[in-house]
């Protein structure tokens, strides 16, 4: 059977499973809708958190990015896992004990103020929308890549799927579909990785294969460093970013991870504090399986790519190269007319993507109009490293189809989790807590469903018509979360003297500064028309790492302001003392 047929079959089967679970896990109350009834086992919650967390970017793009960035890619590996340590030790147990539905709930109660709650809701919405737009786009891309249908239809299909299981089941439906999605995505990620590791190093475990020797007896990493130096790239195991920037980006990603509302809310779904701690550990374990395999895939595919294409005649290039050239993820221009592929440091093209003409060149390659004047002749898209891996390794068609299903599972599960946070923020934090406190549970549930519907439509539109700046800032959602929520929650738990004035001032300063920096250096909407160059960065901090600076400022402002204003009331101090004790958490509730 061909790849197309296999893909339709496997994607069809996985979707049928998701639908089945959605119908089985319908939500009957707001509690089921918001926190899955609070009775999810730590194991299921761990898997669901992992699927919720690992997006299309983790699944498809990360290994590719690391493959081109080498050591610099470590910021994602450490940043997106280390945050779980903070989450498990500093947040999850206490927020579970607190036992409400949402992060703004905690902020609102702990800081005895509806303004604080509103600020938190706005932060949650900004963070979630920047993040979800990228996910819907990811769904569209996977569909168009593997099933050759238009991105627009891909996004619409994705919207319908998410709508069904999120609309019917709320958190309950999402949680159990995410468990299934985790299984699909991790299987799809590991199978090709194990095959390739075995082919290249004779070792079945990719994490060990990465540090092993190839068939020629040379360590893969040593070989890769040598190849990189020869071709004019920076050594694979060194990096080009400054140590401070690596530090800042890693910290911003870690803290941002711990501050993402769709991740935090998952810990409200387990029965008690003990289970909240345990499920944070399990979640990281499940995530670590993918995150320690990804850098191995990066090394394998990077070595494979260089060895296969460098100085090879285009006429002798393997079939997969031409396949991906046809889909637009690879381009080659024979700049020195020798028929061989010169792959060295430097941009092969001007701009971000190759612009193809309808014509073919002397060797049958697709001609492009924007080739650069530099020596490098080869353009390779990051995403190819995971997507093309099974083909490069010559694996059977069903494995390729599996990768498609895995990419879809990753994108859909993350989108669903985010959409739920958005709808909860609106129906619970805004409508129930502020506008109409006396509505019934049933009416609130209806509002939750209406808002999830609206949120999906908006997210879908973002996916179909991606505004340039949203694409640029998706990665910055972490900076926003780090700069806004994280300090307010941590200080709320660990500093009894922290009051509403301090927390509100800190959150506003943090998120405003982060937004300003992001817009200034990523979009050029303020002041000049072009995004400012790296030489203008404050303290040499990239926008990705600026969350760290904004977070530190948030903490300082909160601290200073709180010490000059009135201490929090006695009942609030009691709330804090109470959440520090693990027992008697009971069920997550809205009262």
């Amino acid at each position, binding site marked *: 059977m061909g790849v197309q047929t296999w893909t339709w079959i496997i994607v069809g089967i996985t979707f049928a499973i998701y639908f089945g679970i959605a119908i089985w896990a319908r939500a009957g109350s707001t509690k089921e809708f918001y926190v899955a009834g609070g009775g999810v086992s730590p194991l299921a919650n761990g898997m669901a958190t992992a699927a919720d967390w690992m997006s299309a970017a983790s699944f498809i793009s990360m290994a590719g990015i690391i493959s081109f960035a080498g050591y610099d890619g470590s910021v994602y590996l450490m940043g997106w896992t280390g945050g779980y340590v903070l989450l*498990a030790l500093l947040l999850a147990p206490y927020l579970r004990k607190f036992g409400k539905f949402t992060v703004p709930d905690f902020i609102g109660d702990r800081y005895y103020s509806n303004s604080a709650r509103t600020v938190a809701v706005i932060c949650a919405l900004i963070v979630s929308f920047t993040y979800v737009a990228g996910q819907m786009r990811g769904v569209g891309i996977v569909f168009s890549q593997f099933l050759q249908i238009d991105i627009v239809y891909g996004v619409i299909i994705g919207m319908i799927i998410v709508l069904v299981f999120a609309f019917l089941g709320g958190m309950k439906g999402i949680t159990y579909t995410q468990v299934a999605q985790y299984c699909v995505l991790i299987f799809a990620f590991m199978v090709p990785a194990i095959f390739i590791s075995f082919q290249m190093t004779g070792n079945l475990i990719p994490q060990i294969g990465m540090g092993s020797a190839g068939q020629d007896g040379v360590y893969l990493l040593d070989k890769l460093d040598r190849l990189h130096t020869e071709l004019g790239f920076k050594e694979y*195991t060194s990096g080009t970013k400054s140590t401070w920037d690596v*530090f800042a980006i890693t*910290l911003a990603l870690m803290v941002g991870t711990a501050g993402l509302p769709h991740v935090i809310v998952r810990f409200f779904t387990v029965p008690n504090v*003990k289970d909240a701690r*345990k499920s944070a550990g399990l979640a990281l374990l499940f995530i670590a399986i993918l995150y320690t395999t990804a850098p191995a895939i990066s090394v394998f595919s990077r070595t494979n790519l260089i060895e296969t294409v460098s100085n090879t005649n285009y006429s002798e290039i393997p079939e997969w190269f031409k396949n991906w050239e046809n889909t637009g993820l690879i381009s080659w221009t024979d700049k020195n007319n020798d028929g061989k592929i010169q792959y060295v440091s430097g941009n092969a093209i001007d701009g971000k993507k190759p612009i193809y003409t309808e014509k073919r060149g002397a060797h049958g390659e697709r001609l492009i109009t924007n080739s650069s004047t530099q020596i490098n002749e080869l353009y390779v898209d990051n995403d190819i490293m995971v997507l093309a891996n099974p083909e490069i390794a010559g694996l059977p068609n069903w494995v390729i189809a599996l990768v498609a299903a895995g990419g879809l599972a990753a994108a859909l599960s993350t989108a669903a989790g985010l959409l739920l946070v958005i709808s909860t923020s609106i129906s619970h934090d805004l409508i129930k807590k502020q506008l109409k406190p006396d509505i019934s549970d049933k009416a609130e549930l209806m509002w939750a469903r209406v808002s999830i519907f609206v949120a999906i439509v908006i997210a879908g539109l973002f996916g179909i018509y991606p505004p340039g700046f949203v694409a640029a800032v998706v990665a910055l959602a972490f900076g926003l979360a780090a700069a806004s929520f994280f300090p307010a929650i941590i200080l709320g738990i660990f500093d009894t003297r922290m009051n509403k004035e301090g927390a509100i001032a800190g959150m506003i300063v943090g998120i405003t500064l982060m937004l300003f920096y992001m817009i200034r250096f990523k979009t050029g909407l303020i002041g000049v028309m072009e995004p400012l160059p790296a030489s203008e960065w404050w303290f040499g901090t990239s926008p990705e790492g600026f969350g760290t600076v904004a977070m530190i400022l948030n903490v300082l402002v909160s601290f200073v302001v709180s010490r000059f204003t009135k201490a929090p009331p006695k009942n609030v101090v009691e709330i804090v*003392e109470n959440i520090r004790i693990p027992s008697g958490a009971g069920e997550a509730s809205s009262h």
Partner: protein
Amino acid sequence: MINKNNAKKYWKENIRYLIILLSIWFIVSYGCGILFRETLNQFKLGGFKLGFWFAQQGSIYVFVVLIFVYVRLMNKLDKKYGYNEK
């Protein structure tokens, strides 16, 4: 008041664990993986340069272990202070 005292002691021990565990968290990632990677890169672990290994593999393993150690420590602490729940 006995109850409050108990809670205070529990919290103090908890903070002590947090400081120790978070120091390890900081050392493996920001220390070994970032700040001192050049020094560590002089040593090798199989085919890995050590600093590079910490940045792309080792720190992640330590993170997982840290959380499970924390879970165990806290379960014991909960029992010691009678905050244990079935």
